[in-house]
């Protein structure tokens, strides 16, 4: 849209103010949270001098550290598997036609639109039944834990990864792959040397999204977790419901920091995408 349509007078002022207010609205809570994480006061939200006690509390808390390590372990496995499956799905949808393709396409969108709560319920019931069946057939006694959480996270992440990689694939010039085979590349080599480099930014973006969604997830994890496998968000969520403490604040800021790092990384992936 050309900038010649900028409104004049009071409308212009109003728009500018609205713009700034929105940004303040977005960042103020985060800024305040960071601020209060350093506040020496048991009451979160009241300033009481600078302290690092609450971060110390976090490092001292084995529960918190345990939850963090669980989250990271799960996120890594989830990301790897989601990226592989999601990329394969994207390739299949963008470069091939096959029977049942439309159904597959629609199916891939469901996990994106489905509400957290419904998915949590679905998987809770599923694992219940699944473990019963395994017990009945093989006498195998499984419990919810690492794998139930990981499997659940992968279930929705495949879709997110595939959407991002698909966008990248469809924007790619298909002549490139033709040129590659014209120049004596086998199908696999054409993929490895031409297609893959082109979609790497998309894969990276998908990986970051998968990692973020896995690290962030609360409801689904809460429903399918088992003893000893509390993740950080679930842990924090549990704490919040019992009451607001400074420890939660410091953990929150740490989580914030982790998110920020991932965001910055994804921005670099975006830059790489535009450059190449």
């Amino acid at each position, binding site marked *: 849209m050309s900038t010649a349509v900028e409104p004049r007078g009071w409308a212009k002022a109003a728009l500018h103010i609205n713009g700034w207010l929105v940004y303040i609205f977005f960042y103020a809570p985060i800024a305040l949270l960071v601020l209060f994480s350093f506040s020496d006061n048991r009451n979160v939200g009241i300033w009481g001098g600078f302290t690092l006690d609450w971060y110390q509390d976090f490092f001292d808390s084995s529960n918190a550290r345990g939850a963090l390590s669980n989250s990271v372990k799960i996120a890594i496995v989830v990301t790897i598997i989601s990226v592989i499956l999601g990329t394969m799905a994207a390739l299949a949808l963008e470069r091939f036609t096959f029977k049942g393709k439309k159904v597959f396409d629609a199916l891939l969108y469901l996990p994106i639109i489905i509400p957290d709560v419904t998915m949590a319920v679905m998987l809770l019931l599923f694992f219940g039944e699944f473990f019963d069946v395994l017990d009945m057939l093989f006498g195998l006694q499984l419990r919810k834990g690492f794998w139930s959480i990981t499997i659940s996270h992968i279930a929705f992440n495949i879709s997110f990864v595939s959407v991002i990689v698909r966008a990248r694939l469809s924007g790619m*010039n298909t*002549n*490139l792959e*033709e*040129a*590659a*085979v*014209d*120049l*004596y*590349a*086998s199908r696999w*080599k054409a993929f490895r*040397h*031409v297609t893959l*480099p*082109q979609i790497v930014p998309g894969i990276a973006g998908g990986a970051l999204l998968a990692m973020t969604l896995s690290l962030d997830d609360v409801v689904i994890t809460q429903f399918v977790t088992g003893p000893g496998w509390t993740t950080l968000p679930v842990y924090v969520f549990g704490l919040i419901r019992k009451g607001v403490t400074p420890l939660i604040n410091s953990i929150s800021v740490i989580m914030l920091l982790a998110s920020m790092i991932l965001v910055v990384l994804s921005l670099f992936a975006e830059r790489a995408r535009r450059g*190449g």
Partner: protein
Amino acid sequence: MTAAVELKAITKKFGDVVAVDNVDLAIEDGEFFAMLGPSGCGKTTTLRMIAGLEFPTQGSLSIFGEEVGTLAPNKRSVNTVFQNYALFPHLTVLENVGFGLKMQGVDKGETRSRSMEMIELVQLEGLEDRKPSQMSGGQQQRVALARALVNQPKVLLLDEPLGALDLKLRQEMQLELKKLQRDVGISFVFVTHDQEEALTMADRIAVMHEGKLLQVASPEEIYETPANRFVADFIGRTNLLEGTVSDSETVILTNGTSIRAHSNFAAGTRVSISIRPERAKITQQNDDGNPLSSVNGTVETITYLGNARVYGVKFTWMSLEVREENRPGVQLYEPGTPITVSWDHDAISVVAD
């Protein structure tokens, strides 16, 4: 001598749509061969079948006698220059050019030296470490050429290679390509919808329309003796006068006028007489001319082209274009002037649909 590329009864169907209809074609070694036609005529599909990017539905396709119709593209000694060059954006010019060699397993040293040789041949030395996005359209095209030719293909295929260039650059590249082909020596098969381009560059042209091959001949032949009405109309500009064959030397126009025109069609065949605008002459209306090779009319419009004038001449039943070179001393005619348009009976052709 074995043809470089030979197509026999090649047909390609996409579902119910017949893109290429029973084409027989032989491209000689060392030829600059053009495939010409409007969009959708099947020329690009045919090219892709030679490259191996499509498989024919039916027919035989051989390269220097070897049947390759069903062979994968990476197993044919044929390389393609794509319409938008399809340069690999993540690789440098040098890596692009050497890609085919690398895929064939040629060792690094030889790949590098052969690639550099090619880069010099297309006059891009010094730019080999650039990425394609840092190069102009003309330079990208040369990279695409180098990338294809470095593999010493038996035939080079070019898909509308000059389409993306502006006019001046295009004209330069036309001459360069022609020279390149003579230097390299192999057949160049290129596809274009620009008939002027085909006439300029090609040794022989194949005109296609709606999947069918209409005529394969030298530019002169195609221009002077088009095989049918479509070819006559598509190549260059022409005046088409409808009529019926009366005998081997006469055609009777729809308004009853008899015109002297040689043809081999049976009497009664519906034909058109094709008179190129530059083959017709305008003179003051007179009765000296041969009535079988002239018509009387009035000047209606004059279009000034700088190097020529095109007169739109109106007759009671149609209009003609006559092209008059803008030479000093040539007679000019004002609109409204009654004039006679005449021509040499050898300089026209008779075409059927």
